[in-house]
């Protein structure tokens, strides 16, 4: 299996590199390519994928890949396990709730993989539990117990399902830096909970040397495997770290021996029962869960975009149809999660990384993942150990997860050009979030109805960001114009300053703005040298998050934009060749170009995908 896959890799080397980079970014080791199976004789594959979206791999491959995804998804059961522990339920009821969580995960995976219809991203897109719902769920648990957690999870699902069809239209209100901010806030929230658990703050039992030793060894093992580990060990570092934590906890008595007897009493096979305490709803929890719904929607945009790129080597832009259907599927999955009785779900980023690393993205595996998860729901002894997870183990695992969530958020925030307005939005939102986290009773004079907003770092930071972004959008022009004197010696500098300011105002991607600035400077230079322009050269630019269009209007000879580069000899010896080289560069630099004449003026239009 291994040798065949490497042979295939060499053949596809040029296309393999971007996916490997994506796999690395997503934190999954390319070692997993060893698990690829030989490509089938006939299938529609994209790039170097061994089993593409529409392929039906051999049953063993489906099963093996299915278990790989399930092993990644199961790690995130730590979030419902934590809330279940806080609810202090009897062991049997706790284990039953984890079984129900597995059923919800199975439904979510199948919904995302549906090949047609209005629901589902139509990709292999397993779901997992997420820290995004942790803080609001804990707050709901304290306020109204598990029924309120489940009821509000249903509400979050309804909100996400309602957002799904209008995602494209509301995208300007949710720019990438706000998505990054929300992820960052979630990271700080998980880190704060992780630190409390790791240090034993609020623990019921004794906290001392043994307690801290369990946490330290769990964290050290997880980090060491992630940094220096290889292959499977690195991929499953969190699960292995938890395992080490359990063992040390048992040896030191942090996990009492009699607790384990409870596990041995669990049946190997049992039907999960859906009788939980029902559902309840509270208006005061609406905002925190609405923010969580927005946050997982924003995260989902990034996740489904990543899957699109894996499945399409020629990917140039986000397919919003797939993203909207994926968001709808996630909304329905969260409604079902609340109905069966578990926390909210989101697409599993680790599973996306696994696809990039293995080159196996067949949709069929999504159904296999769903089926495996549902079968596991009938095996309480397999998942029961999660209920007993010692607090320091949980704290170490949460802290480890928080590292990646925090940095992912920061990277997204800084992936765009930020002007003063956007800098203030980001800065004030972070300051608000930190205030809610570290200053006790900081908002004691605020009406109690607003308490769920001001007491949550995620909610307060996100609301601050959304309000400030909405405020600063007032007067923010999406269309900007520059009139250039062709004879001005500083015309290139004017173009640079113009597009730098516009890019910061729009929050544009820096790499796209560099391309735009080159194209306009090259065009101005060529028009000035070869087209005898009369009067000013007018540059108009329009931006809408997905498209950046620039129109140059001048009175002078139209530019030629050849598809073939002129010969070296022509470039060096003739004005026509030199001019054609400029036109060739302009054509290749933009995603689309067009020349025309209007009212006696020459018009040069560039389109850049954003």
């Amino acid at each position, binding site marked *: 299996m291994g040798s065949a896959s490497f042979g295939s890799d060499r053949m596809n080397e040029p296309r393999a590199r971007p996916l490997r980079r994506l796999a690395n970014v997503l934190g999954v080791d390319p070692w997993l390519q060893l698990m690829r199976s030989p490509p089938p004789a006939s299938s529609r594959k994209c790039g170097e994928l061994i089993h593409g979206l529409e392929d039906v791999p051999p049953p063993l491959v489906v099963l093996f890949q299915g278990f790989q995804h399930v092993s990644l998804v199961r790690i995130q059961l730590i979030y419902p396990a934590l809330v279940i522990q806080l609810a202090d339920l009897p062991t049997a009821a706790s284990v039953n709730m984890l079984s129900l969580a597995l059923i919800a995960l199975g439904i979510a995976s199948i919904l995302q993989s549906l090949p047609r219809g209005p629901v589902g991203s139509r990709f292999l897109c397993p779901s997992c539990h997420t820290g995004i719902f942790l803080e609001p769920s804990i707050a709901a648990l304290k306020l109204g117990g598990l029924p309120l957690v489940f009821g509000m999870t249903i509400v979050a699902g309804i909100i996400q399902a309602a957002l799904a069809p209008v995602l494209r239209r509301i995208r300007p209100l949710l720019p990438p830096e706000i998505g990054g901010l929300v992820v960052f806030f979630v990271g700080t929230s998980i880190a704060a909970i992780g630190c409390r658990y790791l240090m034993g703050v609020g623990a019921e039992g004794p906290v001392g040397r043994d307690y801290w030793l369990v946490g330290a060894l769990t964290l050290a093992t997880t980090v060491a495997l992630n940094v220096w580990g290889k292959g499977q060990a690195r991929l499953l570092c969190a699960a292995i770290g938890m395992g080490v934590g359990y063992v040390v906890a048992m040896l030191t008595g942090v996990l009492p021996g009699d607790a384990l007897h409870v596990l041995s009493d669990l049946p190997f096979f049992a039907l999960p029962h859906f009788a939980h305490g029902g559902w309840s709803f509270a208006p005061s929890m609406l905002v925190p869960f609405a923010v969580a719904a927005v946050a997982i929607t924003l995260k989902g945009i990034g996740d489904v975009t990543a899957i699109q790129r894996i499945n399409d080597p020629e990917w140039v832009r986000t397919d919003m149809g797939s993203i909207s259907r994926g968001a709808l599927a996630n909304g329905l999955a969260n409604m079902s999660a609340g109905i069966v009785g578990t926390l909210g779900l989101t697409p599993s980023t680790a599973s996306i990384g696994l696809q990039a690393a293995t080159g196996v993205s067949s949709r069929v595996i999504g159904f296999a993942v769903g089926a495996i998860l549902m079968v596991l729901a009938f095996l309480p002894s397999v998942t029961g150990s999660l209920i007993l997870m010692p607090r320091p183990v949980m704290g170490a695992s949460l802290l480890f997860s928080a590292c990646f969530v925090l940095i992912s958020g920061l990277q997204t925030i800084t992936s765009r050009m930020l002007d003063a307005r956007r800098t203030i939005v980001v800065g004030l939102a972070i300051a608000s979030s930190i205030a809610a986290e570290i200053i006790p009773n900081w908002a004691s004079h605020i009406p109690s109805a607003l308490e769920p907003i001001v007491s949550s770092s995620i909610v307060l930071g996100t609301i601050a960001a959304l309000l400030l972004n909405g405020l600063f959008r007032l007067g923010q022009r999406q269309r900007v114009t520059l009139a250039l004197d062709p004879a001005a*010696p500083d015309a290139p500098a004017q173009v640079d300053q113009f597009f730098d300011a516009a890019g910061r105002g729009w929050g544009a991607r820096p790499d796209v703005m560099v391309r735009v600035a080159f194209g306009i400077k090259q065009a101005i230079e060529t028009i000035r*040298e070869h087209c005898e322009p009369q009067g000013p050269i007018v540059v108009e630019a329009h931006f809408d998050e997905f498209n950046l269009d620039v129109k140059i209007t001048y009175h002078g000879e139209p530019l030629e934009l050849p598809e073939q580069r002129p010969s070296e000899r022509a*470039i060096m010896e003739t004005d026509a060749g*030199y001019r054609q*080289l400029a036109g060739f560069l302009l054509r290749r630099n933009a995603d689309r170009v067009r020349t025309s004449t209007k009212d006696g003026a020459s018009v040069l239009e560039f389109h850049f995908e954003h």
Partner: protein
Amino acid sequence: MKLVEGMSEDVTIVEAYGRLDSTTAKEFGDRLISLVQSGRGAIVVDLKNIDYISSAGFRALLITKRATTEKQAKLALCGVTGEVKRLFEIGAFTDEFLICPTQADGVGKLRQ
């Protein structure tokens, strides 16, 4: 545009700074050709401090390459990274020149 010249044994190194466009390309090309015509047999042009190159800059480099070939001299480019590298790629110029990662690589290549 600023040009800084140096020698590494018998190889001339020219570091270019700033913009390589229609206002600076002539000065840049003329200086390189004068070096070739004065008998410098091997020249490494370091572009790592160039932040913009237009069609005029590519034309100057092509003319310099032709001059070195005519004089049986050798030319290498280095520091072709980032945006300048992208422009070499979209202009299909990466195969037209001997491009080395660093000055030392360029000197080593030309001294072979």
